[in-house]
């Protein structure tokens, strides 16, 4: 019902932003699109390749296609694992944060700390942490007899990266859930106590339903960011050992900058972008639709 009187003058204010976006995003993006349909031998000689790069990309038997398929699977698996760990853990942490008193501020700051660290520093911290010679984690694990070697053992490398991401980002889920929990009026808890509900019943019947909206945001954000992850695994494992932790982003950088294979890289980056967008759109539409149907 917000039918404000229409003004067209406001569009002029948008012009500077449009120009900026044009230069910093749209034009570079169009360049990538250009690369993805051309073949270049350097010296700015371009030969039309049409959908050639894309065909190679989607054919798992080719070298590039195989790498792409493998990296895509790794990305999806990583996102799923990380979500499965971070969401329940975040909810659990949020339930433990005190609601009032001086402790609230102290706890919130402590929880927020991991999110404030620059991402390559996070990577460096864990890289050193995981070293078998001087790293606390690496040395301790090996000292306890657990075979741990993040540079040579794929399982160790994966575990390190997963744990690192959980350490880095569970706080965000926790803080979002805490905000959601704080919005629940006290009367609900009082009524539940009078009804004789146990702790789990209170969680299942009061807290979780009210957290659903917040969780949608949390899952969406975490999925997007974990699917696009680059800096941390790059610093910790560099994509190794071998290709064990080579995610799409890492591969892309290698192909584009390492091998200067612009055509393949451009095609891959476009597809990567489209996959991310599609997955997010599907997820978002699905959850908000379910939300509305629930409301009706």
């Amino acid at each position: 019902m917000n039918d404000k009187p229409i003004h067209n003058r406001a569009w002029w204010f948008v012009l500077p932003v449009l120009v900026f976006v044009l230069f910093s995003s749209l034009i570079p993006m169009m360049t990538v699109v250009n690369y993805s349909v051309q073949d270049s031998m350097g010296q700015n000689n371009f030969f039309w390749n049409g959908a050639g790069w894309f065909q190679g990309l989607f054919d798992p038997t080719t070298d590039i296609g195989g790498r792409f398929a493998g990296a895509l699977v790794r990305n999806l698996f990583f996102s799923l694992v990380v979500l499965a760990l971070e969401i329940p853990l975040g909810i659990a942490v949020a339930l433990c944060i005190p609601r009032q008193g001086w402790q609230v501020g102290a706890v919130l700051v402590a929880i927020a700390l991991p999110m404030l660290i620059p991402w390559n520093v996070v990577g460096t911290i864990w890289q050193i942490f995981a070293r078998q010679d001087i790293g606390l984690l690496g040395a301790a694990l090996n000292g306890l007899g657990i075979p741990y070697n993040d540079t040579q053992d794929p399982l160790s490398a994966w575990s390190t990266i997963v744990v690192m991401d959980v350490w880095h980002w569970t706080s965000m889920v926790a803080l979002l859930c805490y905000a959601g929990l704080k919005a629940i009026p006290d009367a609900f808890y009082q009524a539940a106590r009078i009804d004789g509900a146990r702790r789990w019943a209170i969680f299942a019947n009061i807290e979780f339903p009210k957290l659903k909206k917040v969780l949608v945001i949390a899952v969406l954000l975490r999925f997007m960011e974990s699917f696009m992850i680059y800096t941390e695994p790059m610093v910790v494992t560099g994509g190794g050992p071998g290709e064990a932790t080579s995610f799409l982003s890492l591969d892309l950088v290698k192909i584009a900058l390492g091998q200067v294979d612009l055509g393949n890289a451009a095609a891959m980056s476009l597809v990567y972008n489209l996959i991310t967008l599609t997955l997010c759109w599907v997820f978002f539409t699905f959850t908000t639709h379910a939300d509305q149907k629930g409301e009706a």
Partner: protein
Amino acid sequence: MSLALDHLGLTVDGIPVIRDVSLTLERGTMNVLLGPTLAGKTTLMRLMAGLDRPTSGRLLLDGKDITGVPVRRRSVAMVYQQFVNYPTLSVYENIASPLRVAKIAKGEVEARVQQAAKLLRLEKMLDRTPLQLSGGQQQRTAIARALVKRADLVLLDEPLANLDYKLREELREELPRIFAESGAILLYATTEPTEALLLGGNTATLWQGRVSQTGPTAAVYRRPHNIDAARVFSDPPLNELIVDKRGATVTLADGRSIPAAGPLGDLPDGSYRVGFRVDDVTVGGERPGVLSFPGRVSVTEISGSESFVHVDVGLATWVCLVRGVHEWEPGAAAEVHVDPGRIFVFDPDGRIAGLPAAMETV
């Protein structure tokens, strides 16, 4: 100065929310907009303020079409139900805020704020923040802010609904006096008929987005033009009865017949809806020449010096007023007497067909 609404209408998502409203508001009197919740009072006020654009019709201020004028350029002030104040500013700054936006000179700001504070008895609270004040004081701050703007149109949207009823009584007394000198056109929206009667002036009854009647408040109360106006202007709800008139007798839905008395007597044969208010019907006692219905008491509600007895007479449950504090036992048998000289008769379309003899007002 007057504000005229000319066939104003608003449709949202295909649903007409305001239907063909034509109304003229004059300044110098309290104009009341009376209607139940969701009748469209707030929507209509938003259209008048310019916050929403009507889908049809025009808004004329002193004959000039202001329908397309954005709210920022209109001279309008609005007071809401929920004591809307700037929480971080002092009361003084809150009241001064519209003047600061209009870049009024400092000396003038001081004068006007002090004047408004005096009218609303806030002089001692000027340097507190709204959250340190009671509900009544917060609402007075909001009213002062509307007053100080000296707007042509002041819209009050159920401003007293969130206050304790004693505070409501006090503030309601003061409101007409406070705005009397501002020379603005006042519109006060409320759901309570009693409040409309206490404020006096002119009332427009609103039901489902349509204005059913306008006129001096007491006249709308006593002489409703249609059943919607009568229903809106009754609290407790209007007691109703469907009757079928043939000649000198009137048949009820359960087959009983009663003589056609009062306004029913002069009407042509047909089906009618009879309405009467709580004070036109009593319980107990014997009164000759009245319409009587046996029934059972379902509950008694006591309000200060009056008792409202709900009696189930089979055809409906009616609410009757008894003076004094009386408690009837639920389930007790009771006889309801309706004064036929005081009933409203409506035809099947809802239009008034018969009125009681006009009551004299002082």
